[in-house]
C-alpha cells in the first residue's frame, strides 16, 4: 500500500504532448502580428500551460484543501503586488530613466 496511488503513466505523456503543442502554438501566434491581442494570447497560452503543470505534474488536482488554499494565497499575494504597483505607476508621472528627466527639464519631452 502506498500513500498516494501513482498516476497512470500515460497521463504524464499526454500532458507532455499537450505542453509541446501549446509551445508550438504560442510560437506560431507570436510570429503573426496580432497587435493589441498578442500579449493576452501569449499570456493566456502560458497560463494554460502553467495550469497543466500545476494540476498534473505537481498533483494539485488531488492535493489537500490546505495545499490548494496556500497556492490560492500565493496567487492572491502576487496579484496584490502587481495591482498596487501598476496602479501606482499608471497614476503618477515617474521619470523612469535619467534621460527622461533630462528631456523633461530641457522641455523636449
Amino acid at each position, binding site marked *: *500500500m*502506498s*500513500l*498516494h*496511488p*501513482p*498516476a497512470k*503513466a500515460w497521463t*504524464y*505523456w499526454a*500532458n*507532455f504532448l499537450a*505542453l*509541446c503543442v501549446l*509551445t*508550438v502554438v*504560442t*510560437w506560431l501566434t*507570436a*510570429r*503573426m*502580428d*496580432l497587435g493589441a491581442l*498578442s500579449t493576452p494570447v*501569449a*499570456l493566456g*497560452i*502560458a497560463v494554460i*500551460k*502553467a495550469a497543466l*503543470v*500545476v494540476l*498534473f*505534474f*505537481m498533483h494539485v488536482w488531488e*492535493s*489537500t484543501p*490546505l*495545499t490548494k488554499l*496556500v*497556492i490560492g*494565497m*500565493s*496567487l492572491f*499575494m*502576487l496579484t496584490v*503586488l*502587481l495591482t498596487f*504597483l*501598476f496602479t501606482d*505607476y499608471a497614476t503618477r508621472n515617474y521619470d*523612469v*530613466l535619467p*534621460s527622461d528627466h533630462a*528631456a523633461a527639464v530641457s522641455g523636449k519631452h
Partner: protein
Amino acid sequence: MQVTEKKHAQEAHDDHGHGHELAHHFVSVEQQHDAGNLGMWMFLTTEVLFFGGLFAAYTIYRYKFEKVFEQASNILDPMLGAINTIVLIFSSVTMAFAVRSAQQGKSKAIVAWLGATIVFGALFLGIKYGEWKHDAHLHVFPTSDFNWTWAREKHAEGEHGHGHDSHGPELKGFVFNSPVVPANYIESDSRNPEAKQAKLFFFLYFSMTSLHALHMIIGFGVMAVIMVYAWYGYYTPHYYVPVESVGLYWHFVDLVWIFLFPLLYLLGAHLGAGH
C-alpha cells in the same frame, strides 16, 4: 529516573515499527506527508513573489519602452527558446516519473529518472550557454560594453546569412573575449536614448534567465543528494516527501520558464528578421 524515561521514549519510538519512515511528532504517515508537502508549497509561495518582483519590473519598463523592448526581444532566437522550453518540459516529465517511482517504492528507478532529469536540465543550460556566447558577440550584456548600434547591425547581418562569426567569442574565465566595439559605434549609442532602453531589456533578460539557471543548478545539487539516498533504498511508498519536494521545486522552475519564454523571446517575433 531520567535514564528510564529516555529508555521508555526510545521504546515508544520504536513501537511505530517504521524506522525512519515516521517521525514521532506525527500521528500517521499521511499526516507527515501532507505536512511536508504543505511546507514545500509555502516555500514555493515565497519563490512566486521572488520572481514576481522581476516580472513586475519587466512589465513596467515594457509598457514604458514598448517599441524598443520588441526590437530588443527580436535579437533573441525564438527557435532556441522553443527548443529549450520543450527540453525543460521533458525534464519535468522525467521528474514526474521519478516521483512516481518513489510512490511505487522502486529505488533504482528513482535514481535513473533523476539522472535523466539532470541530463535534460544540463542540455537546457548547454543551449543557454550557446545563446550567451552569441549575446557576447552581439555585445548585449548590460555592462559598459553594451552597444545597441552594434547589436542591431550584427543581428541583421546574421539574419541575412552573411557575416556570421563561425568561431564566435570564447569564454575566458568568467567573461567572453568578444571583439572590441569601434569608437564610432560607442559615439552612435551615446546619442541614441533607445540604447539605454534596450540595455534595460537585456538587464531584465539576463537577471531573469540567470536567476532561473541558478535555480536549476541548485536543483542539480539537491537531486544528486536524493539520488544517493534513493540508491541505498531510503525512500519507501510511505516516506518519499524529499523526492516529491524536489519534484515540486523542479516543476516550479519549469513554470517560471513557461512565462519567461513568451515574454522574453516571443515579444519581438512578429517583427521578422533583421529588426
